[in-house]
């Protein structure tokens, strides 16, 4: 210990005594630099993504004949870029997905956080987490080979095997763990004292959940909902496999028909052996759709953030 011989009389204290170890100061500066570089890296990546999107999107937007962007269908190789076909397709799949994942996810979260005994929770929670780890391509085939023939076609004869509805259910299955996990966190963070106050007045469990726990957790639930929507819009593989259309599609609003979403359209342009050469703007249209997708999910996340901040309660 170099500093062991501190002069306790205090008469000879100089600034050098308080400067500290040079080597340690330098080490700290290095650590700080490395960590801020890691933080800055993610910002850099975001900027580069936006840049690559904007560049090609700009080419598309400035050169395309806009009458082609609002038409009968999305056939980029034939210069038909009807964007509403894709947006409505994404919307249908998302609505079906949320209709499946919302009630089941929140229900599972309520069960886990309020009703399940510790032993049951220890078994059920990892099971839900395993579901979250299933690759989306597997869920896509599950939608195609089970959900569609065993559920949809059984109750609605004559439905094609590949439909937006089947894809929507598949997407719902995929995002159940996400909804359940975020909602459960939100509900478990509601302080125990609020539940006790409610029980202490003779409220039943169901009343306590609906009148106290859910309202107090509302910011988390809204966040769960919006993250789920954003995830459902962005989901690609399930839709690509189960929704039925790939290269192009006519405008379609019936969920029990095959359809095309923004993500599936992008995947099919980007994939496959029939590389895009024909129409000059086919390749750029991919970026146009990508930009749209990016703007939608970004604004959703911003709305979620704003909303969560606005309704957040302090305890």
């Amino acid at each position, binding site marked *: 210990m170099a500093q062991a011989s501190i002069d306790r009389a205090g008469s000879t204290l100089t600034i050098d005594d308080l400067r500290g170890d040079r080597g340690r100061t330098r080490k700290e500066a290095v650590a700080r630099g490395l960590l801020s570089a890691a933080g800055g890296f993610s910002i850099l990546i975001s900027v580069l993504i936006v840049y690559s999107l904007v560049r090609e999107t700009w080419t598309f937007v400035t050169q395309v004949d806009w009458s082609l962007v609002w038409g009968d269908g999305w056939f980029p190789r034939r210069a038909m870029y009807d964007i509403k076909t894709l947006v409505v397709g994404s919307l249908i799949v998302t609505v079906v997905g949320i209709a499946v994942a919302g009630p089941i996810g929140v229900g599972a979260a309520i069960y886990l956080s309020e009703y399940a005994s510790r032993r049951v929770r220890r078994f059920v929670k990892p099971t839900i987490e395993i579901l979250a780890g299933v690759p989306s391509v597997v869920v896509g085939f599950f939608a195609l080979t089970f959900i569609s023939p065993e559920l949809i076609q059984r109750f609605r004869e004559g439905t094609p095997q590949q439909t937006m509805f089947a894809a929507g259910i598949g997407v719902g299955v995929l995002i159940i763990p996400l909804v359940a996990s975020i909602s459960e966190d939100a509900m478990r963070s509601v302080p125990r004292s*609020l539940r006790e106050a*409610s*029980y*202490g*007045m*003779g409220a*039943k469990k169901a*009343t306590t959940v609906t009148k106290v726990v859910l*309202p*107090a957790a509302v910011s988390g639930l809204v966040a769960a909902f919006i993250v789920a929507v954003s995830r459902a819009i962005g989901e690609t593989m399930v839709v690509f496999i189960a929704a039925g259309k790939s290269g192009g599609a006519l405008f379609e609003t019936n969920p029990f028909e095959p359809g095309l979403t923004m993500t599936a359209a992008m995947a099919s342009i980007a994939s496959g052996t029939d590389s895009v050469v024909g129409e000059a703007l086919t390749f750029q249209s991919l970026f146009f759709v990508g930009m749209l997708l990016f703007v939608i999910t970004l604004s959703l996340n911003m709305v979620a953030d704003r909303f969560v901040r606005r309704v957040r309660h302090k305890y």
Partner: protein
Amino acid sequence: MANRTGATVSMDVGDLRDDSTTRSDAGNEDARAPVFQVDDLSVYYGSFRAIRNVTLQVEQQQITAFIGPSGCGKTTMLRCFNRMNDLIETARVEGCVAYHGVNLYEPGVNPVEVRRRIGMVFQKPNPFPKSIYDNVAYGPRVARMKGDMDEIVERSLRRGALWDEVKDRLKSSALGLSGGQQQRLCIARALAVDPEVILMDEPCSALDPIATGRIEDLMEEIKTEYTIIIVTHNMQQAARVSDMCAFFTTEVNEKSDTRTGLLIEFDRTEQMFSNPSDERTENYVTGRFG
């Protein structure tokens, strides 16, 4: 609301069952029959015994205080009176807590019914993140009480000695109130469902002396209508407000090195503080221990 004017409530388990909607009429037995008769009560959390062999009774329209050092099971004991311990998965109760002659732990007793009659105020003020009005109206709404809700809210807030301070901002958030106001709101909220008994778990431990004084005054006022059991760390508080006093302490279990609470002495408060019969009580109330 019916049975509070000194007459004894007679009750059987049917009153506490799930489907019960009415209270039985007042009987005409001895007016001083206890509200609670606790017999040989022990509480376990898993294999750990938190309190053992407690026997005491709680009289109507009196304030009964539970005092004792930390960890002696006062709160555990208090939570037996409205089956709040049910919320802890591992908790288990042995013995009998009779409420007007009905054992609260008898099969068929619904804790929801018990808690409507036996309200609770907690250590830390715990208003809901709702408006002041909705906090007070919560219990009556849950219990589907009849009558004008505005009136119920006003009456409860007046009883909670909070009305004058909040009458102009009933719709604003309860979380904007001061700690002392929040605690009085919690008392008003508990009173809103017209319970017969109020359990208070160290209601002033998070409050400053002025707010504490107001809560104590409030307890004095409402004890003509309610039976109150209060857990407190503050011996002066027990001496000031309570009629009866129970002193708990802990014993160390040699084998498991855990502590179990037990009741040492239960008597009139004056007696306990001036002339306790047990040396351990005397040591505690004179500040030599705990």
